[in-house]
Structures are given as C-alpha cells and as structure tokens.
C-alpha cells in the first residue's frame, strides 16, 4: 500500500474519518447511558446519537435574519473536517502510526483549536447575544487552558527529545515508540504533574462540566449553538463527538500507550478510551457544578499551569 493511499484512507476511513465518527458517536451514546444509570435513570439506547443525527439531517435549517449566513452554516463544517483529520494524526500504539506528512503533535494541538474557533465564529455570526457571550467565554477559556496544554506538550516533547538525543520532538510516533520501550509516562513520577494538568485540560477543551461555561444551557441557552438546527446542528454534535475521540486518543498517546500489537492493541486502546470516557468525562460531569468564567480563568492560571510548569522544569533541569 503506497503512502498516498494510506494517508487518504487514514483520513477517510481509519482511524480518522468514518471510524472516528462511529466511535465518537458511540462514546456519546455510552456517556449518556452510563450517566443515566448513575442517576438512576434508564437512559437512551447506545445508538441514540446516530438516530439523532439522522433526525437532524432532515429537519429544517433555521438562520436568523441578522446572521451572516455563509459563515453561520460553513463554520460547523470546518469544525467537523478538522476533527476528522485530527483523528488520523493521533497514533494508536501497536496498531496505527500516522504518516509524518500529516503532522505531528503541534499540528494536532492547533487542529484542536479549530473546534473552539468554529464555536466562537458560529456564536458570533449567529447575531444572538447569547452566542456572543458564548463566543467571549470560549475565547477566555481557550486563553486560560492554552498555557497549560502547551507546557504539557513541551514536557512530553522535551522528555522524549532529550532522551533521544535531540532537544525536543513533537513526533507522536516517536513519543509512543519511546514509551513502548521505556514505559508509559503515566508511571513516570516526573510526568505526574503534567498528567494532572492534562486531566484538567481536557474537560475544558471538551466543554463539559465544570468547564461547559460557553455553552451553559441554564445561563446562555447553549450559547453559540442556540440558533442552530437541522443538519448544521448535527454537524456540531458530530464535531463534539469526534473531538472527544481525538482528545482522549491524544491523552493515551502522550501518557499511556500500551505495549501491545495487533488485535490486542486495538482492544486495549478501545478499553482505555472507554475507561477515560467514563472516568474522565461522564463521572466528572455528573459530580461537579459549573464554574463561573472568571473562576475558570484564574483556576487555569493556578493549578494546571503550575503542574505543567513543574514537569517542564523537572525535565529541563534534569
């Protein structure tokens, strides 16, 4: 299989594209089901997100008269594309190594910015004041968590890079390969603060409680997506589902790749994703209340930043 074909397939089918889409929606379904069970409800079937998507596809599209229509409708499309692609950039230990031409950790990090931007542009372009507030909050949150995540990435890059003889490496393949031979970073005390910082980052990045501030239903009526309906709203749901796959997959690649190959590798990876989804997303969102945006902003300037900086300092000074 030539490289070009591999690249195209990785984006269209696996692990990006269709596979990521299916996995993401399934995880969503699982999330809703588990949450319902924990709350003593029955909950929807696992396939509910798929059903929702089909339902939305045939709903009418609503566009506010004062909205900027091409941007309003185009924004979610861009978000989905970015996440479908990003999913192909995250390696699965022992199973999938992305082609270098697709991009490294830095590209993934910046692709992860795109959904946020899409939400902001969507909220802003909808001309709804709730959308505008959501836009503002999303940007504040992004400014807040960007520092920690950059330092987390730096910690990993420096850790691997220094060990491999070049100062830093952002190659996810290399990062995974290093951990396969030297043990995962989850077990490395130097990296614990960074792991902690990442754990605080991803709820914010995924926009779940306690950091679902931009879309807070009870405050700003889902903010940026308030005005969306029909297929466009469906795209937002897809984007959000895909983003969970990318962020969780990235977390696994950065800190906990399993040293397996073949089918066990795939199953192991799936298990990790599911566990992370349940523990890191479902459990968290059920057990916490929402922060205010100013609290979240100063929170990220305290703990996650300190944690990630601690890891970086420990690595750089070693």
């Amino acid at each position, binding site marked *: 299989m030539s490289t070009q074909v591999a690249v195209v397939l990785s984006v269209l089918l696996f692990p990006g594209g269709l596979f990521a889409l299916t996995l993401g929606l399934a995880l969503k379904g699982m999330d809703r089901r588990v949450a319902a069970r924990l709350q003593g409800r029955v909950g929807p079937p696992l396939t509910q997100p798929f059903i929702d998507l089909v339902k939305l596809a045939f709903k009418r599209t609503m566009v506010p008269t004062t909205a900027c229509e091409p941007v309003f409708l185009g924004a979610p499309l861009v978000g989905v594309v*970015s996440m479908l692609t990003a999913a192909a950039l995250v390696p699965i230990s022992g199973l999938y190594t992305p082609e*270098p031409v697709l*991009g490294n950790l830095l590209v993934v990090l910046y692709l992860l910015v795109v959904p946020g931007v899409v939400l902001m542009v969507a909220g802003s372009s909808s001309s709804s004041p709730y959308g505008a507030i959501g836009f*503002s909050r999303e*940007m504040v949150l992004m400014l807040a968590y960007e520092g920690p995540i950059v*330092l987390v990435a730096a910690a990993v890059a420096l850790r691997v890079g220094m060990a491999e003889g070049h100062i830093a490496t952002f190659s996810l393949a290399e990062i995974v390969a290093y951990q396969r031979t030297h043990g995962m970073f989850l077990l490395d005390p130097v990296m614990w603060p960074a792991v902690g910082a990442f754990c605080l980052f991803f709820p914010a990045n995924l926009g779940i409680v306690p950091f679902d501030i931009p879309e807070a239903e009870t405050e700003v009526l889902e903010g940026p997506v308030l005005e969306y309906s029909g297929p466009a709203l469906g795209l937002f749901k897809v984007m959000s589902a895909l983003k969970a796959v990318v962020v969780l997959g990235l977390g696994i690649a950065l800190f906990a790749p399993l040293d397996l190959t073949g089918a066990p590798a795939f199953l192991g990876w799936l298990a990790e994703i599911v566990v992370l989804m349940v523990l890191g997303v479902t459990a968290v969102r059920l057990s916490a209340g929402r922060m205010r945006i100013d609290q979240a902003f100063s929170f990220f300037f305290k703990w996650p930043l300190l944690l990630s900086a601690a890891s*970086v300092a420990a690595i750089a000074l070693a």
Partner: protein
Amino acid sequence: MFPLEIHLDHFIGEMAVFAMTTLDPMSLAWMGAVFLLFGEIAALLSIAHPVRVLIVSTVAELGYVLIGLGVGGAAGETGAFMHIGFQLAMRGLVVFAGWMLILRVGSTRLEDLAGSGRRMPVTATLFGFGMFSVMGLSPFKGTYSKFLILYAAIEQGHWAIAAVGTVASIVAAVYYMVLIQRICFEAPARRIALRPVPKGLMAITSVLAVAAAAMSLFPAPLQTLAETLAGVVGGAGVPHFESPWSPLVLVPYIGGFALYALGRFSPRARDAGAVVLALSTFALVFASPDLDPTSRLFALVFAGIICVMVIYSIGYMAKVEWGNRYYFFTFLMTGSMLGLTTAREFGDFYVFWELMTWTSYFLVIHEQTRKALNAGLIYFLMCASGAYVMHFGILMAHAEVGSFAFSAIAQNVDAIAPGIGLAIMACLFVGFAVKAGLVPFHAWLPIAHPQAPSSASGPLSSILTKAGMLGIVKILFGVFGLGALTRFAVAGVDLRTVLLGLGCVTLLYGEIQALRQRELKRMLAYSTLAQVGEIAAILGLGTALATDAALLHVTNHALMKTLLFYAAGAFILRTGLRYIDDLAGLGRVMPFTAGVYALASVAIMGLPPFSGFISKFLMIYAAAMAGSYLVAGILLAGSVIGVVYYTRVISTLFFKPYTGQTSVGQAAVREAPASMLVAMGVLAALIVVGGIAPQFQLALVAPVGDAIAARSGLAPAVLPDLIMAWPASAALTMIGAIAVLFVGRFSVPWSGRLAVAVPVAAIVAVLAQSGRYDLLSLSFALLIAGVGALNMLHATSYLAHNHAQPRFYAVFLVMIAGLLGMTAAPDLFNFFAFWELMSAWALWAAIIHEETDEARREGFKYFLFNTVGASFLFLGVTMLAAKAGTFEFAGLKAALASLPVAVILPPIALVLLGLVMKAAMLPARIDYQMHPAAAPTPVSGYISAVLLKSGPWAILKLFVVFGGAGLFVRLGGQIGGEIGGQPAILTVISVIAGITMVYAGAMAVVQNSIKLVLIYSTVCQLGYVLLALSFGTSLGVAAGLMHFVNHMLLKDTLFLVAGAVMVRTHATLLDELGGLGKRMPITFGIFLFAGLSLSGLPPLNGFASKWMIFEAAFSSGHWLLGAAAMISSMFTLAAVLKFAHAAFMGQPTAKALDASEAPAPMLVAMGVLVVASLAVGLMPGLLLVPIAAIEAQLGLTPIAATLTGPLPGLDGWSPTILTLLMLVLGLLLVPWLRLGRSAGVVRGPAHLCGVADLSADRERLPAAELFESPNGVIKTLLLPGNPGPGKRI
C-alpha cells in the same frame, strides 16, 4: 611752499625732541594710554551731550599721539604724525557737519539731534561718514595710524599699552555707534522746524569730506609726510600693511558705487545692473586662477550666494525704501568678503574684515526700525570688538615674525614660542569666533539675523558666519598649521580642543534655543548657530577628512539656510506674519515656496536625497574616523532636536488647515514674485544636485583638506564614494513620485493611475537588474514593489475624496524608492542613505497625511523615534566603516574577519540596536515605537507589512557582511559566552523578540481601535520573525523568512480590509461597527481567511510558518521562547476574532447601516494578496525553495524544500497533502448540509427569550465587553495606570 613745510617739520620735530628729552618717553606713552582710556570712558559717559562727547573724545584721541611718540621708533612716530593728519581732516568733517546739524536743529541735546538723518539726509550722511572715518572705518580703506601706533607698542614689548589702546577703541566704538545710529538712522521723535545755516559751512564740510575720502583712498602722501616728520628714511621700520586690491574686490566695489548712482535715475536699471554685476563677479571668481583652494571655495560660495541674493532682492526689495543703499552695501560687502579670500597678508585681511562688518551692519539696520537699530548696534559692537582683539593678535604676529605676509608667517611659525603663539592665535580666534557666532560670542547672531530684511538675513546667516570659518581654515589651519595649533598649548589645552568644545556647546545651545523659538526667522537664526557649532566641532577634529567634511557642510549650509530664510521671507512678504503658528496651511496657497522650504528643511535635517545628508554623513564619518565618538554622538543628538523644530514648521505649512490670516491688507495670499521663485528654485536645485551628485562640491572641497594636510604634514583625506547608487527601480520610482505630483496638478485620477503603474514598472526594473541583488534582497525588492502596487491601488480608492492625493502618492512612492534602493545597496553608505530615504521624511509625511491633530502628534512621535533609531544605526555604520577602512560590503567582510572582537562589537551592537528598533522591538515606550494608527490605512498596511521588514531583512543581509555565523561564534566566544549553543548577542535579540511577541500580542487583545488591534498584532508578528531569525539555525532562518512573507501577505490583507471598512463606514473604533458581514461579504470572507491564517490555524499558510518557528525554537533549545510563541498565537486569535465579531457580526450600527461592498480596486488588491496566501498555503515550496537558495547564499545549511513537499524539520508535515485532504472532506460533507434544504430554510429573528423590544445596540455585545477576565489581567499587568496607549482603549 617748501620753507613753510620745512619750518613746520622743524617745529614739530623740535616739539617732539623737547617732549622726549624732558620726559621719560615711556612715562609719556603711559600718560597717553591713561589719558586715552579715561578720555574714552568720559566720552562714553557724556553720551547725552554730543558736543561734550566730541570734545572729550578729541582730547582723548591725543592719547594715541602721545603713545605713538612715547613708544617711539619709526612706526610709533610715523603713526603719531599720521594720526594727527587723519584726525585733522576727519574730526574736522565731524565737527563741521555736527555744527551744521546743531545749528539747523537749534539744540545740542541728543534727543533733539536724533533723527537728523531723515531731516537732513546729506548733512547727516557726511556726519556719519566722518564719524565712521574717525573710528577707522569708511567705504574706503580705513585709517591705520592707530594700527601703526599700537603696532609700535607691541613691537617694543609694551603689550599692556597696546592692550589699553585696544580696549579704548572698543569703548569708543560704543559711543560712536550710539551717536551715529541716533543721529543718522533713527526716526525723528518729533517735528522740528529747521533753521538756516551759513552757506560757507556746507562748502567747508564738503571739502573736508573729500579730503577725508582722499586720505583714506590714497594715504601714501600723508604717510610720506609723516615719515619725513618722524625722520624715517624710505619707510624703513614702518610696517607695510596693504597691497593693491584684487579685481575680485574692485569689481563689486566700484560696481556698488555705480549702482548707487544708477539707482538715482532708474531703479529698474539698477536691479538689472545688480544682476549683471553679481553674475560678473561670480564669473570673475570662477575664472580666478590664483586663489588657494580654501579661498577659492569660500569665494565661490560668497559670490554664488550673492548672485541668488540679488535675484531674490528684485522681488523682495521692490517696494522697500532705500533700495540704492541696500544694493550699494550689498556689493561693498561682497567686495570685502572676496577681499578676505584674496588677502595674502594680514593687513588686507584685517581691513576687509572690518569693512565686511561695517557694510553688513548697514544691511542689518536696513529697515531702520528701533529693533533693527538695536540689533545692528549689538552686531556692530561685538564684531568690531572681536576685530580689535584680532587686530591685536595680528600685530603680535608681526612683532614676532616681522611681516604681515601669510607666507612669511607660515615659514616662521616654528620659531614662535608656545605662549606667544597661543596668545596670537587666541586673539585671532576670538575675532573669527565672534563672526562665526560661536558660544559665548554668539549674542548678536540671533538678534541681528532676523532683523535684517529676509533677502539679507539669508546671506548673513549663510555666508557671513562662514567668514569666521574662512578665518579658521585659511589662517589658523592654513597659515599657522594644525601642528602649531597643537604645539601652542597651555596646560594641555590647545585651540583645536577649544574649537571642538565650543563647537559642541554652540551646537547644543543653538538646537535647544531654536526649539524654543516661536518666530520663524529667529528659529532659523538659532539653527544657524547650531550648524555653525557643528562645523566648528568637526573642524576641531583637526584631520584632513574632517576639514573636507566641515567645508562641504559650509557649502551646503550656505545653500540650505539661504533658501530657508528666503522662503521665510516670502511668507513674510505675502502675509506679514512672522510666527510659526500663523503659517498654518500656507502650503496650499504658496505651494512652491512652502515646497522648497520643506525641501531645505529636510536637507538641513540631514536626510537624503539632499545635500545636507551627504555632508552630515561625511561629518559623522570624519568624527568616527578620528575616533571622536562623543562628537559624533553630540552631532546626532543635535539633529534629533533639529528634527523636532524643523518638522514643526513643515507640519504647520502643509498639514494644518489654511486660515487665510494675513496682516497685510485684505488681498488673498498668493505665490511669491517670480524673481524670488527663481532664486529659491536655483537654491533648491543645487540642494538636490548636491544630494544626488556631490562630486562637484567634493571636487572643490577635497583640495582644501589636502592643502591643510600638506601644510601640517598629515596624511591626505581618503574621501569615501558618497554618490548614492540608484538602481533603476529606485530611480524610476523616485522620478515617478515627481511625475505623480506633476500630473496631479492636471488630473488627480491620472496621478493615481500613474502611482499604481510606477511600482509595477519597478518590478520590471528589479528583474531587469537582477544581477545587482543577492537572492534575499531580490526577493524582498520584488515584494516591496509588488505589495507597493497593490497598496497604491487600494489607496486610490481609499483617498478618492481626499484633497491632496498626489502628495500622498508621491511620498508613498519615495518610501518605496528608498526601500528599493536599500535592497540594491552595494555598500554601507548606500544602505544607510536609502534606509534614511525610506524611513524618515517621506514616511512621516505619509503618516500625517490626514492632517488631524492626532495624526500630527503620533506621526511626529514616530518620526522622532525613527530618527533616534537611525542615529544609532548611523553611528554604528560609520564606526564600522572607519574600523574596516571601507564601506564596500565585500571589503568590510574581509576586514572585519581580521579585527579583534572588542573593536567590532560596539559598532555591530549599535547597528543591531538600530535595526531592532526599526522592527519596534523591546516595548519600552510602545506608543513611540509603533507606527501610528492615524496614517491612511493603505500606508499603515504597507508599513506593517513591508517597511518594518527592513529591520529583519537588514539583520540577515548584514549577518553575512559581518562574517556570518563565524563572526557570531567569535563574538559569542568572547562576550558573555554562549547560551544554549547560541552566541550571547543573538540570545539577547531572541529574548527581546520573545518579550515583544507576548507583550504586543496581549496588547492587541485589549485594543478597541480598528487599526491599533492590527498594529499591535504587527509588532507581535515581527517578534516571531525576529525570534526565528535570531536562532541562527537553518530551520530558524527559514521559518523566520517564511513568516516574513506570510505576515506580509496576511497583515497587509487585514489592513486593506480595515481600510475598506473605514472608507465604507468612516469609523475608527471597533465599537462603532457591527453587522458588516452581510453588507461586505467578500471583504468579510477575506478578513476571516487572513485573520485565521495569521492566528495559526492549520492547514493555512500562517500556521505553516509558525509551526516552523515553534519547531526551530524547541530544536535550538529555546523551548521557553517556543512555548511563549505558541501561547502568543492565542492572543492573535483572540484579537482577530474580536475584530471579526465587532466589525462584521451581529446587529449593524448606525455607521454600518449604509455600508456597501468595498470598491473594486480594493477588492482586487485584497484578492491578489489572498490568492498569494492560498497559493503559499497549498504549495509552501513557493517560498521554501527560494528560501533554501537564500540560505545557501547566507552560508547556512539550506533546508530541504520542494514545491509541494513537506515542511523542513524533524518530522515535517505537508501543507499540500493536509490542505487537499481537508478540502476533499469538506466537499464530501457539503451535501450533508443540503439535506435539510428539502425541508426548507427558515429565516427569522434570533432567539431572545421572548424579549422583543431590545434596540439593536442593546442586542449587540460590543468589543470592549469581550474577554473580560483576560482583559483585566492584561490591563493590570501591562497598563499600570493606563498610560499612553491605554487612553485610547
């Protein structure tokens, strides 16, 4: 008759013998001296009673005779007898003329006699003639009996007596001048009925006048008689003072008398005659074969300026009284000044020196107002006193050497003892310094120059002060020699050092005083002081090169200052207003005059492409060559001050609204008369020629330096090649700028079209001469011209309703010309010259084009900051060339390689400082260093996108010149070591760039002004570029260069969008906008693309270069800076989205309601830029392939690059592949969006929870209310107390 004479001779002889035998001769001399001094003081004290003054002063005059007889000797006795003879005739004239005045007025009191000049012009003139003659001055040769007597005293060692005589002369000058002025020139205070006088009195007076004139003209008979009386045989022992006058003196002199006579019949014939006479004099000077180089240079300047003065005067003096007298004294002054140049001995020199003062005095007081008379009095007294001191020195020199001849003194100078030598030179120096106006001898200058008619103010400032310089160069340097100057030192202080010190003090004093003036001509006079100080300081360096430089500036200052005064004179003539603030907007009604005023101002600020730049450059270079960095620094500091007050006037003339104010009646102000325009035009042309082709002036100046060097046994100067090497592209653009102005007079739209065509043609010119460039510069040059054409196209729409479009297009083109010239520079001189052309006056004029208060204020601040930055660069460049001995890049590289690090580090650090300042790095006072928002938007975009890139470009270009990586390794090895494998000096730049990047990025987020958001973001992005370049690695430089171009394309797009928005809405703040997205959809799309790309969203081109920067940072060990760069890109994102939200989304504001899509030319300009960005995004190789070649030329390992291949770096990704894949995915998903269409699209109001009565304003979330928490943090951290830029938030 003979017996009588013998008898008389016998009698006087007997008297003398009697006096000498009965009295100790020295007691007699001392008695005379005391008598003289007290007599003069007594006369001065009785000034209110003219009769008493005359009596006392006549008696005091006997003191001279006593001194002469007392000290004895051939000279003393001859002098004493001659003095009696002179005084008999001249005092007689004074007495009889005065008697007539008193009789006619009927009073002896000065108050009554005052103003007699208007009542009785002839008698008063005769009286004045007599008075001046008694003082030793007249249009003819002065009396020199006094000269002889004092000489005798010095010759025989009686210094003190001579000194007393000199002081007495100074005291006498005071009351003589007061009497002359009050009686002859002052306006009468009241009417007095004149009484008749006996007819015979007039006859006697006339006879005495003729006698006095005859004695002055032909003193030989009287001298022979005196010698006979003194018993001197054949003149032995009596010094020989003068030689016959040269034709250079006689022609204007006799011509002056002829013109006076002619003028009594026909003023028009007189004017024509004056022009002919001036031109003939100039021709005569030009053809004069026997002048030494110094004299020739000064004579040409003197005669040339007089030609211009005469032409100017035709218009200026047309309606002024006393025109005949004006031309008369003008030509007498010319003759005297030329006499200085032809003088070969001190006698002549002194006579002409005095005549020069005397004749120019009449020009100062020409208008005869009280102020003018006062100024004239101070002028005359100071200069005459200086001359008396000089006179004393001359006599001492003769006593030492036994001759007045320059050649004799030059031969014997080594025999003079240091103490006496210093005294002689100090006396001469005082005379020269007073004339030149050096502090502390300057008091007259700022008073006298503005009071003269403007036609004379110019030459007074421009050439009369230069007579002092002539004295210093011709006499001190040429006759005595630099060796003597150094040898004659007391306690280690010699005159050269004094000259240098006084020069620096004068320079700073003049600049600071000029800064404080509100009256135009006074400001110019103080500026003359500063320029004279500059020249003196450089002369004081005492090298051949410094002499060349100073004299070149003498010639340039003569042209520039004359022009400035002449333009000021034209303003005064047409408006009657003398204060700077009153000149607002005159550029509109007097475009030519104001234009040449601006030209001369720019030239005198030392900016190219005018002659002032060349001489300033040479002066700074000479200072650097002499190792006097302090002097160079003071010169540069002075010019920074100069920038302040010169720009103030230009700004008032052109960039303020015209008020129509005049004080000369109701007539509308119009352009000056033709003859004045011709005079000014000639000067302006010479200034331009001097800037573009200085070789003609240098050919005049260079022999002087060589002669001075030869005289003192120094090495001759090696003049650098100071001719700006204009590449075709720059020359074309510059000519285009002039053509645009010209076409603009007929058709504004066509001038705009031409302005767009010129940079397009420049692209062709760059390509045609591609051999002149290295690849880096070639690429930059093409971008300069290309983006220039686009922004100019945009500007034609942006300024469609502006009143002075051609002016804007022209200065914009000059900026482009500067940039183009800079990229093609083959040496440091050209690099710096074009750098100044690019970043100084044209930039300033473009920025303040909108003529608002804010524009003027902010534009000025930026100009000042640029001047300071350029000054560092200036010093660095000249120091480097001085150390290396060449300006050529190739030679420089070779030379620097062999020089020790400690020698080359300071200049390199200065150069880098200048370049880093250009890129607005290190935010100390960001409100100064950032280009101002008030500029017309297309030029803001150009500055941000292109012009500021000259900093990073130059760093790379000079990196190679300085020896590439090798030199920095050497630097790093010796200074501060290496930090993380990078030399310390580069680490400093990295850190500065990193701080700026974060700081400016954060500041961009909190702005509310449309353009400040973009400008802060520019500073931030320049930080990225510089950061990457400073890593010095292959990847870092490639990343920096790629971002260099990406930012150029993207930021320019954003500015052009902002321009389109501003044109369509007339808003300046984001909060005034909203909802434009629906009204300007294409513009919005372009903004969103460029903004998001600049923020670094993959897979766009802006992300590709940022990705490389991050990689380069981490891989070179600067992970902290890398992380900072990553975080800062979030700031950019926040700023871009804030802009997008506030301007384009939501409910429209009142200002946005009627907006429509941007005009076609704007869309074309923006579209081209977007297409370029897209192309780069899809095929990064478009940039990376040339960048790899550039790196190879720079001596770095080139990155691996192909057209569509992956980015360089450890694990480079492929923008081509990623972009295509995402495009495909996007296209696949589009049908999904269409699915719902079958069910229809519903359009309705946005959901507001049922609230239906919110106004559009309430429904909108304004820009200022976005991002509250980070805003608060940023403002608290970066804007404590909200200073400067905070106010506009």
